[in-house]
C-alpha cells in the first residue's frame, strides 16, 4: 500500500515539522504498520514556477515551434520556445527556468533554436512526471487562472510529496488498504481527529464527518428500472450495488487526481476510470465502470462462469473461465471476472455515453482462487482477497458520484441499486477482562480497555462481574464493525488493546514455576559429540541440502534397483536440483568436493551428520523415516600431512578406517567388524562393509575413477557412510573399571608369514583365541611383503602382552601359550617367522 502524505493530510492532521513527523511514523511502526520505504516520486524537481504567457508568436524559421514571452513574476520575463500548441496568451503555465531541473533531476539549460534562445522550458504533464499514458501527457500544463506568476509550482503541484510504502501484514491488509484506513490508524496513534470524506466533495473541499446514512434505494428509482441486478451465486457474492450515470465525458482527469493516483502507484487513464481508482485508493472499495450501452439486456447477472466460458479481459488477453470462477454477466455473456478484471466487451471508450458503476463484495477465497489460476493479480483482486468492508459498497458509489459530478465526468441517474444476498452484521465479541490482562501481560483496567479500543474506532463496554468492573468475572463487550473481518475472537481483541496500549509498555518478566528438567535428546547429543570427535581428526563439518537431482543416481552409476533410488520425489521442485529427497548424504558431499576442486581446493577432509529420508513405499502414503547418517569424505593430502617434514602422503583407506574406528570407540562400540564389500561407485578390493554386533553399520571405500571424474575430482577420494541411528542404539553409556593390574606383564613379539588372502582380522582372531585369558593386548605393528617372505605371502608382526590377574607369569607359562598360538596359526597356514 502506497500512502501519499499530502493526500493523507486530507483525512488527518500530520505534524508539519520533519522530526515530529518521523516520530509519528515511528509510533505507527510500533503499532504494527511496517513502513518499508519513504519515497519521493518527484524528487529532483527544482526551480519550477508559474509563468504568465504574455505573447505567443510563430518561430520565424521553424514553423512547428512557438515562441512565447513569459512573465515569471519576481524572476522577470523570459523568452521560451515550445513545440506544444495548447497554450495562448493569458495562460498560466509551469516553467522550469534555465538552471532548474525536472523531476528525476534532469537539468534544463538555455537552448538555442535557430537564433532564438529559450531561457527555460514550459512543462508538459509528462515532463512533470504526471499524466503518463494519457492524451494530456504532451500538452503544456495550464495552471488555474489567478495563479500568481512566480508561484512555486513544486509545492503547488505537489511535486514535493512523500509516499510511504507500507508492508501490510494480512490482518492490517483487511482494513488498511485504503487512505482512510491508514488515516484511521494514524489518528489512533496521534490522537488527531479523523476527517472522513463526504460524497460530493473533492480534493479541496472536505466537510466534517460523513453522513453514513447515505441514500440507499433498493433497486428503485431510475437506475433500478434501467438496469436489473441479479445475484445468482450468493455464496460468492453477498452484496452487489450499482448506479447508472449519464452525460459521460471521457477525458483526462484533473491534475490533482492524476498526481494522487501516481503517488498511489496507479496509472491515470481517463476521468471515469481514474475516479473508480481514486475511490478504491481512498475507501478501499474496488469499483468497476461498464459502458452501459454495451450491456446486453441491460442486466447484470452475478453467476458462476460456464465450463470453458471465454472472456477477453481489459488487458487484451483471452481468459478461459470455469464454474469455480465468479463472472459478472449481462443477459448473454460474461462481461467481467468478478473482483479481478473487467471485460474488453464492455470497456469504457471515448464514445461511451452511459456508465454502469459496480460496487460489490465478493468472497475473498473465490477471488483469490481465480486470480491465482489466471495469474492475474490486480489492485481490485488484492483488496478482495484480503478483505473489503461488505458494508461499504453504497458509500463508494456515493463518493464516486460526487467526484464524477465535481470534475464534470458524468451525472448520476438518481437511485442506487443495492442487492443484498446475505447481510453482514457487525459482530459482538465478549472476553473476560482477566483474560485480557493475562494475555497482554499488563495491568490494564476495564475502563482503559474501553478507551484504548475507542482510539481504534471500536466501541466497547465493560459488563462488571460480582466483584466490580475490574474484579474477576468482568466481561469486555466489543462491537466489531464489518470492516474489521480480521477480528474473530477474544485473542484478537487482546491484540488490539495491547497494540493501542503499546507493546513497549509491557514490562518483561520471567515465568516462574517448578524446577524444569531439561536435556538434549540422545540423537542430538550424540550428533554433537560425534561432530567433536570428527573435527578432532581434522575433518570440517558440512551442511548440505536435503535434496538433489535425480541425475545423481546415474552420476554414481547406481544400478536400477539400488535402494538409494527409492527416494521421495518433490511434486513441485523449483529446479532439477530439488527433484529428490536424499536417501544418502554422499551425492551432495561429492558435489561439495567437486565445487571446491573447481576452485583449486583439493585437500578436503569433511563430514556431515544429517538426515536422509526413507519412504516405506512410493508414492508416499505415510510419513517417511528420517534417520541420521554420518558421511565422511577424504581426498588430497592426509590431514596434517602437508607439513615441512615432507610427509605429504595422500589420504588412504586406512586413514578413513582409523577415523571410523575412532568414532566408534568414542561411542564405546565394541566388536566393530570390517568385511570386504562392494558398491556401485567404489573400487573393487578397496571397499568394506562395516558392522557391529552383527548389525550392519555402513561401508567405506575408494571412489572409482569414473565416479570421481563425474564430480570433477582427482583420485584418490575415500568416502564412508554409516547408519548413525544404529550406532547410537549400540552405543554403550560407559565401561566399568576393572581394577589396576596387580602383576607385571610379559611382552613378546611374534611374526607370521601367511598367505596374502588370509585377512589380518582372522589372524588376529586366531591369535586372540589361542592366547586365551592371559593375552591382554595384541597389536599389529608391521606388515611386510617382499622377497624375504616369498610371492603370494606376507608377514604380519604382532606385539603381544601377557598378564595374569592371579600371579606373575613365568617365561615357561608364556612360552607355552606362544607355542599354542604358533600351532593354531600353522593350522591356518601361518608360519612363525621370527620371535
Amino acid at each position, binding site marked *: 500500500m502506497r500512502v501519499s502524505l499530502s493526500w493523507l493530510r486530507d483525512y488527518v492532521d500530520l505534524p508539519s515539522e520533519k522530526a515530529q513527523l518521523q516520530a509519528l511514523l515511528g509510533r505507527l511502526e510500533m503499532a504494527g504498520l511496517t513502513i518499508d520505504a519513504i519515497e519521493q516520486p518527484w524528487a529532483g524537481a527544482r526551480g519550477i514556477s508559474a509563468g504568465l504567457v504574455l505573447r505567443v508568436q510563430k518561430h520565424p524559421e521553424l514553423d512547428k515551434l512557438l515562441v512565447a514571452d513569459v512573465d515569471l513574476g519576481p524572476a522577470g520575463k523570459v523568452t521560451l520556445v515550445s513545440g506544444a500548441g495548447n497554450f495562448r496568451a493569458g495562460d498560466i503555465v509551469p516553467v522550469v527556468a534555465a538552471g532548474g531541473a525536472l523531476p528525476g533531476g534532469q537539468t534544463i539549460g538555455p537552448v538555442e533554436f535557430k537564433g532564438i534562445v529559450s531561457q527555460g522550458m514550459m512543462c508538459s504533464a509528462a515532463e512533470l512526471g504526471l499524466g503518463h499514458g494519457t492524451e494530456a501527457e504532451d500538452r503544456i500544463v495550464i495552471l488555474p487562472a489567478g495563479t500568481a506568476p512566480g508561484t512555486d509550482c513544486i509545492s503547488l503541484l505537489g511535486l514535493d510529496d512523500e509516499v510511504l510504502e507500507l508492508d501490510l501484514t*494480512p490482518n492490517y491488509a483487511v482494513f488498511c488498504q485504503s487512505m482512510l484506513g491508514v488515516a484511521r490508524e494514524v489518528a489512533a496513534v496521534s490522537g488527531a481527529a479523523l476527517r472522513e470524506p463526504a460524497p460530493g466533495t473533492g480534493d479541496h473541499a472536505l466537510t466534517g464527518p460523513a453522513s453514513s446514512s447515505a441514500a440507499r434505494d433498493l433497486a428503485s428509482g431510475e437506475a433500478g428500472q434501467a438496469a436489473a441486478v441479479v445475484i445468482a451465486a450468493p455464496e460468492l457474492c453477498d452484496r452487489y450495488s450499482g448506479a447508472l450515470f449519464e452525460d459521460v465525458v471521457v477525458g483526462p482527469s484533473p491534475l490533482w487526481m492524476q498526481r494522487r493516483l501516481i503517488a498511489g502507484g496507479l496509472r491515470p487513464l481517463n476521468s471515469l476510470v481514474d475516479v473508480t481508482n481514486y475511490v478504491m485508493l481512498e475507501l478501499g472499495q474496488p469499483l468497476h465502470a461498464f459502458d452501459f450501452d454495451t450491456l446486453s439486456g441491460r442486466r447484470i447477472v452475478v453467476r458462476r462462469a460456464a465450463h470453458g466460458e471465454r472472456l477477453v479481459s481489459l488487458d487484451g488477453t483471452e481468459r478461459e473461465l470455469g464454474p469455480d470462477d465468479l463472472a459478472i454477466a449481462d443477459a448473454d455473456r460474461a462481461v467481467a471476472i468478478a473482483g479481478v478484471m473487467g471485460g474488453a466487451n464492455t470497456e469504457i471508450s471515448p464514445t461511451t455515453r452511459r456508465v454502469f458503476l459496480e460496487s460489490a463484495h465478493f468472497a475473498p477465497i473465490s477471488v483469490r482462487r481465480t486470480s491465482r489460476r489466471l495469474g492475474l493479480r490486480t489492485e481490485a483482486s488484492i483488496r478482495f482477497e484480503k478483505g473489503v468492508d461488505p458494508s461499504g459498497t453504497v458509500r463508494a458509489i456515493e463518493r464516486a458520484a460526487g467526484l464524477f459530478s465535481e470534475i464534470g465526468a458524468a451525472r448520476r441517474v438518481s437511485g442506487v441499486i443495492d442487492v443484498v444476498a446475505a447481510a453482514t452484521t457487525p459482530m459482538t465479541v465478549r472476553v473476560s477482562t482477566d483474560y485480557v490482562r493475562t494475555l497482554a501481560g499488563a495491568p490494564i483496567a476495564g475502563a482503559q480497555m474501553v478507551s484504548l479500543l475507542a482510539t481504534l474506532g471500536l466501541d466497547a463496554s465493560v459488563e462488571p462481574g460480582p466483584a466490580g468492573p475490574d474484579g474477576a468475572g468482568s466481561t469486555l463487550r466489543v462491537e466489531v464493525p464489518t470492516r474489521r473481518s480480521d477480528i474473530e475472537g477474544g485473542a484478537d481483541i487482546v491484540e488490539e488493546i495491547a497494540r493501542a496500549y503499546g507493546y513497549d509498555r509491557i514490562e518483561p518478566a520471567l515465568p516462574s514455576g517448578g524446577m524444569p528438567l531439561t536435556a538434549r535428546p540422545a540423537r542430538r547429543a550424540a550428533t554433537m559429540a560425534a561432530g567433536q570427535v570428527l573435527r578432532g581428526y581434522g575433518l570440517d563439518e558440512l551442511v548440505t541440502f536435503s535434496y538433489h537431482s535425480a541425475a545423481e543416481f546415474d552420476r554414481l552409476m547406481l544400478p536400477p534397483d539400488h535402494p538409494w533410488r527409492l527416494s521421495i520425489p518433490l511434486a513441485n521442485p523449483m529446479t532439477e536440483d530439488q527433484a529428490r529427497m536424499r536417501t544418502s548424504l554422499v551425492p551432495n558431499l561429492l558435489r561439495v568436493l567437486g565445487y571446491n576442486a573447481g576452485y583449486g581446493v583439493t585437500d578436503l577432509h569433511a*563430514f556431515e551428520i544429517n538426515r536422509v529420508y526413507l519412504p516405506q513405499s512410493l508414492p508416499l502414503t505415510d510419513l517417511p523415516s528420517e534417520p541420521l547418517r554420518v558421511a565422511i569424505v577424504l581426498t588430497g593430502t592426509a590431514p596434517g600431512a602437508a607439513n615441512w617434514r615432507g610427509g605429504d602422503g595422500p589420504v588412504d583407506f586406512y586413514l578413513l578406517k582409523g577415523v571410523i574406528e575412532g568414532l566408534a570407540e568414542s561411542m564405546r562400540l565394541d566388536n566393530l567388524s570390517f568385511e570386504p564389500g562392494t558398491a556401485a561407485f567404489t573400487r573393487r578390493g578397496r571397499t568394506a562393509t562395516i558392522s557391529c554386533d552383527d548389525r550392519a553399520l555402513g561401508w567405506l571405500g575408494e571412489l572409482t575413477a569414473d565416479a570421481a571424474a563425474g564430480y570433477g575430482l582427482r583420485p584418490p577420494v575415500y568416502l564412508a557412510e554409516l547408519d548413525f541411528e544404529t550406532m547410537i542404539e549400540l552405543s554403550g553409556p560407559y565401561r566399568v573399571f576393572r581394577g589396576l593390574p596387580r602383576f607385571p606383564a610379559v611382552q613378546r613379539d611374534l611374526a607370521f608369514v601367511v598367505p596374502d588372502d588370509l585377512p589380518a582380522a582372522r589372524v588376529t582372531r586366531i591369535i586372540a583365541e589361542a592366547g586365551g585369558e592371559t593375552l591382554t593386548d595384541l597389536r599389529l605393528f608391521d606388515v611386510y611383503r617382499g622377497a624375504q617372505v616369498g610371492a603370494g605371502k606376507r608377514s604380519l608382526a604382532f606385539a603381544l602382552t601377557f598378564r595374569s590377574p592371579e600371579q606373575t607369569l613365568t617365561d615357561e607359562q608364556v612360552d607355552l601359550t606362544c607355542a599354542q598360538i604358533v600351532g593354531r596359526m600353522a593350522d591356518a597356514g601361518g608360519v612363525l617367522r621370527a620371535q
Partner: protein
Amino acid sequence: MKRLAELGRKARSEVAAAGDPDALRELELRYLGRRGELTLILRSLGDLSPEERPAAGQQSNQLRRELTELIGARAQEMRALPESKSEATDRLDVTLPGTLPSPGRAHPLMRVWQEVEDIFLGMGFDVVEGNEIETDYFNFEALNVPRDHPARDMQDSFYVSRDIVLRTQTSPVQIRMMRQMAPKLPVRLVHAGRVFRRDDDITHSPMFHQVEGLLVDRGIGLQHLKGVLLEFARRFYGAETQVRMRPSYFPFTEPSAEVDVTCAWCRGKGCRVCKGTGWVEILGAGMVHPNVLRHGGYDPEQVTGFAFGMGLDRQAQLRFEIDNVRLLFVNDWRLLGQV
C-alpha cells in the same frame, strides 16, 4: 674433619671451573649423589666417637647445603652464557609449525544452532526433535492456517503429495509435543531444524533453519515472552542488548509480535546491518492462538502460552557477517576457512 675441609675446597673450585651444564651435573653427582663423596662422608659419621659426631655432622650438612647452593647458582650463571656445543647440536627452530592436523571446523550454522540451544537449555527449555517431512494437518491446519490462506500456496511450499509437505516452519513441533504432553503443565521446549520454502534469492534459501520455542502454562502473557527473549538476547548478543516487540501477524499466534534487538554491531548507533535504525529484527513470536492450543489438546480458557520462531541461518549470517544466505550451504572452503 680435615678431609671434609679438603673436599670443600676441591668441590668449590671445581664448581667454579665447570664449563657447561653437563660438567656441573657430573659434579653434583660426584659430590652430592647417592654415592657421592660428601654423601659417603655423611654416612661414615657413625664411625666417629660420640663426642666428635655432632660437630662433624653439622659441618658436613653445612657443606652439603653450601655445595647445593653453589651448584644451583653456577647453573643459573651458565644459562646466561652462550650455549654449549652439545646444546647447539640439539637446538630446535621453535618457530617451525607444529605437525599435528588442525582440528576441523564446525559449520557456522551449527555453531549458532548449538549456542542458541544451550541458552534455552540453561533457561529451562527442553530440547525436542521433530520431523522435516510433515502432514498438511500438522504443518498448516492445526496451526490455524485455514484452507486458501496465502501461506498454503503451491508457490510457497514444497509438496510431496496432496497431504504431505516439506514443513515450512518448525511450528508443527508445537502441536506434536503438546499432544504428547497434554494435559501436563508446563510445556516448555525448543526445537531447531530444517524448514523449506519455495524462495531462492540473496536473502532466501529454499532450505533454511529455524528454532522454535513454546511455553504453555497457566497465566502466561506477553510479559513472559518479552522477559524470556530479553534474557536470550542478552546472552546471545551481549549484556547490553535491549529488546522491543512490534505488533505483527502470524496465523498461529494472537497477539503476534515481531521482535527486534538493539544492533550488536553498532550498539544502536545505526549501521549497515541495522540499516541505520539501530534495531535488528530477529524473530516472530506471539501468544499461542486459542485454536492451536485446542489442536494441541489444551483448553485455551485454562492455559495460555507463547511461541517464537527464529531463523538460525540469519543469526549465523549476522554473527559471521556472511551477506548471502546461499553461501551457507555451498560449503566453500574459502568461506569455512575464514570463520
